[in-house]
């Protein structure tokens, strides 16, 4: 009898629970909380949807803020409505996310977007809708300045190439290192020792290596004419293949195809210091009378140059690596600094088109010098006179790539 009230209460609770679950309400035990304290879940607001700038199309950027009041949602959903009117859930994002990029849109199609807030597995809040139309752009807006500069540079260089083609006399100052190439090869011939040509340690995709191959062709022709052996150890297999072709052609042009020895152009190793060790070994064993170090070099530059100096060779070096130039200057007889290496093909061949491009390169450099001087003056005086500061800002934007 004492247990009867407890049993009745239990039955009532069970019945009530069953009735609640049949009606689809919240699980038993939760009904008191849900009816008394239904949470207000924070929704997204200030929704913006824009076509993603500077892309190939198909992208829309959606950004939003979250309401400060309300319960933090468990997650957020990005809903897209296309032309068909059907809603599509694009993504479920962790709470705290404030941006999303839709990458599956079609260009020219209007889409509407909204952000819903999920709480305990159900949608508990939603933002308003915004629309956007994705499209592709024809130009990166952050690179217009660079494009203008490139067009100016190309125009200058092509103009001077045309000038050269028309036969106008173009003055090029003497570059000591290049003028000494013949003397160096001649010296090697007199001493009966080989010429060693080191084309740097980078691959054929490096412009300096390509410039080095150009000079190698000239040196090969000279060694063929003088009858000096030429050794070309390379650090990359593709460079070896190109060097073999270039040297072979040089010997053919000199009328000495029989003297060409393919084995004298060989691949050592890709490893930087393995290559340096191998070349040092060649220098110490073969004792070349002339050494050319032309191309891209890194830390091994001084190791090679000092070893070459120790055997008494005349050394002509050239690189556009600013960090290695001081080492070559200290250890070599002649050094081609920076763009002098690229000037070599024009200087040695004296071909009008190449000379023209060299002049164009110099004119383009003058353009940059003027730009820098104007920019420095504008930035300095602009601190005291705002109109010039805007000139400095303009120049900064012009040369900035985004």
């Amino acid at each position, binding site marked *: 009898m004492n247990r009867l009230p407890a049993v009745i209460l239990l039955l009532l609770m069970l019945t009530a629970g069953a009735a609640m679950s049949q009606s689809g309400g919240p699980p038993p035990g939760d009904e008191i909380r849900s009816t008394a304290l239904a949470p207000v879940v924070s929704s997204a607001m200030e929704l913006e949807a824009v076509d993603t700038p500077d892309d*190939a*199309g198909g992208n829309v950027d959606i950004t939003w803020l979250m309401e400060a009041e309300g319960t933090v949602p468990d997650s957020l959903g990005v809903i897209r409505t296309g032309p068909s009117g059907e809603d599509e859930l694009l993504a479920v994002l962790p709470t705290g996310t404030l941006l999303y990029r839709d990458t599956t849109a079609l260009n020219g199609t209007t889409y509407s977007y909204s952000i819903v807030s999920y709480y305990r597995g159900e949608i508990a809040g939603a933002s308003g809708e915004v629309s956007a139309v994705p499209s*592709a752009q024809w*130009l*990166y807006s952050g690179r217009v300045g*660079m*494009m203008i500069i*490139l067009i100016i*540079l*190309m125009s200058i*260089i092509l103009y001077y*190439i045309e000038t050269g083609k028309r036969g106008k006399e173009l003055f090029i100052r003497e570059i000591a290192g290049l003028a000494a190439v013949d003397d160096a090869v001649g010296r090697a011939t007199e001493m009966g020792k080989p010429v060693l040509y080191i084309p740097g340690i980078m*691959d*054929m*995709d490096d*412009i300096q290596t*390509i*410039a080095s*191959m*150009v000079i190698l*062709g000239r040196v090969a022709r000279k060694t063929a004419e003088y009858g000096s052996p030429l050794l070309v150890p390379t650090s990359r*297999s593709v460079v*070896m293949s*190109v060097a073999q*072709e*270039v040297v*072979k*052609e040089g010997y053919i*042009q000199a009328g000495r195809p029989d003297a060409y020895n393919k*084995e004298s152009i*060989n*691949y050592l190793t*890709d*490893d*930087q*210091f*393995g290559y*340096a*060790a191998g070349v040092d070994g060649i220098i110490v064993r073969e004792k070349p009378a002339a050494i050319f170090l032309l191309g891209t070099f890194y*830390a091994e530059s*001084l*190791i090679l*140059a*000092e070893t070459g100096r120790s055997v008494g060779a005349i050394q002509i070096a050239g690189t*556009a690596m*600013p960090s290695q130039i001081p080492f070559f200057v*200290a*250890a070599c007889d002649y050094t081609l600094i*920076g*763009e002098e290496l*690229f*000037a070599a093909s024009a200087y040695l*061949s004296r071909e009008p088109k*190449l000379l023209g*491009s*060299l002049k164009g*390169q110099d004119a*383009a*450099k003058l353009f*940059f010098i003027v730009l820098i001087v104007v920019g420095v003056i504008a930035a300095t005086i602009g601190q005291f006179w705002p109109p010039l500061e805007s000139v400095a800002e303009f120049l900064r934007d012009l040369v900035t790539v985004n």
Partner: protein
Amino acid sequence: MRLIIPLAITFTSGMIMILNFFIPHQPFALLGDNLQEWYMIVASGAIFLGAANLLHVHFRKIRLKLKNWKYSPVTIVGFLVMIILGLFYGVTENLPFDYLFMNMVAPMGATMFSLLAFFVASAAFRAFRASNWRATLLLTSAFLVMLGQVPIGAMIWDKIPLAKVWLMAIPNTAGQRAVMIGAAMGVVATSLRMIFGIERSYLGGAD
């Protein structure tokens, strides 16, 4: 034909990459992406070319007993040992390939790099002469940077590290930028010459 095809490929590839840099619209974006992937594949393939050439050169040296042929078996054995160990054991730590790499290749490479210290000293002794005011200025800067680069500089005078930072940040940067701009202009001009087919000697026999 031997010239036209490589020149056409150079021109097309060069223009695609230039346009890809400025134009996001299709088909330039896709073409540029594809070229970049092809480049990565070709770069990987070149590794095999190098390995094949290495073996060819050294086997030939042994076969014909050319000068210094006795060093070639050492090269071939070293090459094959590392390849076989790498294939069988992978590159995981503490396995044979990694052991040989860390205990032989690494120290040998570091040793070669260390030669620089000796060569810098001998080059400095031989070449650094205060023969005029410019060379004297250079020497003074070198001394300040060398002292500022080690703790002793700060112990001698606390302004030395500041002088070093100033030298690196201002005069050095100005000089580096000048060389870099000049070299970059050379790269642009050379690249344009190659793209437009004006420079052809890198193709071999194309004058």
